[in-house]
């Protein structure tokens, strides 16, 4: 009788536990999603300059508020040659700032610095800035976005 009780409760426990774990640990099961978003017409970004762009997280929720708006640095080298950098420092994710005069990105947290092409210039970052994949579609600059870039998954 007791054995039957244990057996039944093992089934009941699994019926509760498996969905529960599946719910909480969904990040371990779901494949990563990215989507193309527009940063606006290419003309917004003058040649030879680096400008702050922004987009709405393609997977945002209606209650995300301002956290749905994500900034990025857009460097238009010339013509359709672009580099789109994540705002997050490759060290620990703080927002890097662009300094046009010295052509450097500087991080306010731990002093990381990057050259205008995103390469690491100084400080603790282990690599250059994270970059987005981009394409030009109908005169619009599109990037593949939707995730916070980290060293584990550098594609922003």
């Amino acid at each position, binding site marked *: 009788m007791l054995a039957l009780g244990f057996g039944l409760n093992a089934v009941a426990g699994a019926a509760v536990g498996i969905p529960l774990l599946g719910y909480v*640990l969904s*990040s*371990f099961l*779901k494949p*990563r*999603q990215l989507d193309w978003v527009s940063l606006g017409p290419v003309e917004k970004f003058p040649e030879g300059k680096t400008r*702050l762009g*922004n987009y709405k*997280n393609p*997977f*945002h*929720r*209606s*209650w*995300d*508020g*301002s*956290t*749905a*708006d*994500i*900034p990025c640095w857009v460097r238009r080298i010339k013509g359709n040659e672009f580099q789109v950098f994540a*705002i*997050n420092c490759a*060290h*620990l*994710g*703080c*927002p890097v*700032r662009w*300094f046009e*005069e*010295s*052509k*450097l990105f*500087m*991080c*306010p*947290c*731990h*002093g990381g*610095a990057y*050259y205008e092409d995103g390469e690491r*210039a*100084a*400080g*603790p*970052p*282990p690599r250059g800035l994270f970059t987005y994949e981009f394409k030009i579609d109908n005169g619009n600059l599109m990037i593949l976005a*939707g*995730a*916070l870039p*980290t*060293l*584990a*998954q550098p594609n922003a």
Partner: protein
Amino acid sequence: MKVPIQKLTDLGLGIFNWVDDRLHVKKIWESTAGHHVPQSAGSWFYVFGSATLLCFMLQLVTGIMLALVYVPSADESYATLEYLTYHQQLGWFLRGMHYWGSNFMVGIMLLHMTQVFLFGAYKYPREITWLSGLALLVCTLGLAFTGQVMRFDEDAYWGLGIGAAIMGRVPFIGQQLVDFMLGGQIIASETLSRFFALHVFVLPGAVIALVSLHLRMVLTKGINEYPVPGMVVRRDTYDKEYAAILKKEGVPFFPKAIDKDIIAASFVIGGIVACAFFFGPKGPGGPADPLQIDANPRPDFWFLWIFAIAALMPAEIETFALLVGPAVIGLVLVALPFVNGTGEKSWRRRPVAVIVTLLVWISLGMLTYLGVTSPWSPVMDGWSAETTPDAKILNRTPLELQGAVTLQYKQCRNCHAIDGLGGERGPSLSDVGLRLTKPQLVRQVVQGGGNMPAYGQNLSPSEVEALAQYMISLRPEGIPPARDTTLPRKPKD
């Protein structure tokens, strides 16, 4: 009318006995508040544990109060925080008490831990007391970190980013851990909800359970006697010795040993209330709007030392240190009562323990100080906000003045100070002309190195020349510039 005192007393006693018959109140009281402790444990050094618990209870009460107004949604939380701080009657004070209560709780808990360590209270037979205390430390730091996220401002937002970046350094499952921590692929509403659930349900629940265990151990294994040099703990004799101490000088915790706890409690509450009243709550800072990229994220006080380590660690070992370091510290702390479970308890006979304690506190103190001043961070407006002192411009040639302009315009001063004005990331330039020769200056500017970016791509030769000339002029009056000592001295030197 005559008051029937006798009847009322009988009635009261009757009710008490009825309740006691069902709940065994007397027995529980005697075995908890009335349990016997060594008289020597009624010391001022023994008040930190109860003071930590007191902070936690205050956090529960003020936390519930805040939850009456706060909305854990990325869209609304900032507005509710502002409402709490500026409109809700006494909301600022409740927020202040919750903020300062958390600071006090972590601080007093660390004092408690230090005292337990120095008094050898973790030794046999109180291993589980120590281990449950460690778990409480982890939960309390967890509460402090998640609480910082509840103040959903720019510090919270970028603090989450830092947490995610550390998770992202974990090999193999880094990405999954990042998404697990954030509740999605990005810092957003689900991140806040997740941390809210941790902060108000999971962690406080865990603390209540762990405190029960912690106090249960205090009851079953007794509070540590005040250590006496020369009284050595042995596994086979300690229990008898402790029983003998209790028999000889045992007193009931209530009312004989609790007096100092009660007095300390009033000071702790008084301190929290005073800080809340005079300093108020922290923030909220700027809203958690990622587009506000001029954020200058800093963690709360008790995490500043980690912030400093992250800046000072050589990049090559950082991932290893960030991931393995905590595990090693955890392992050492867990192993402590097992590898060092016997022997002397008194700190007077444990020089290594004293040195370790001092080193840890001094390191934490220095790192926290560095975290506050963060000299490694560029001063973002150093180039546009700082003036150049008169003495550093007067009597300069046009070329040198051109160099001064270049130095300002190329943002050198975000990292280099002149007469204390500007960043501290790189060395001060106040008297750089004494330290470096012109070829050295040119090389450093053009090629960078030693944590300085190379400016060669970004400066014309004439700008480099002007810059070098200006920097050579940066030295005390009447003292010649640095010269290459491998070359023969020229007459005019």
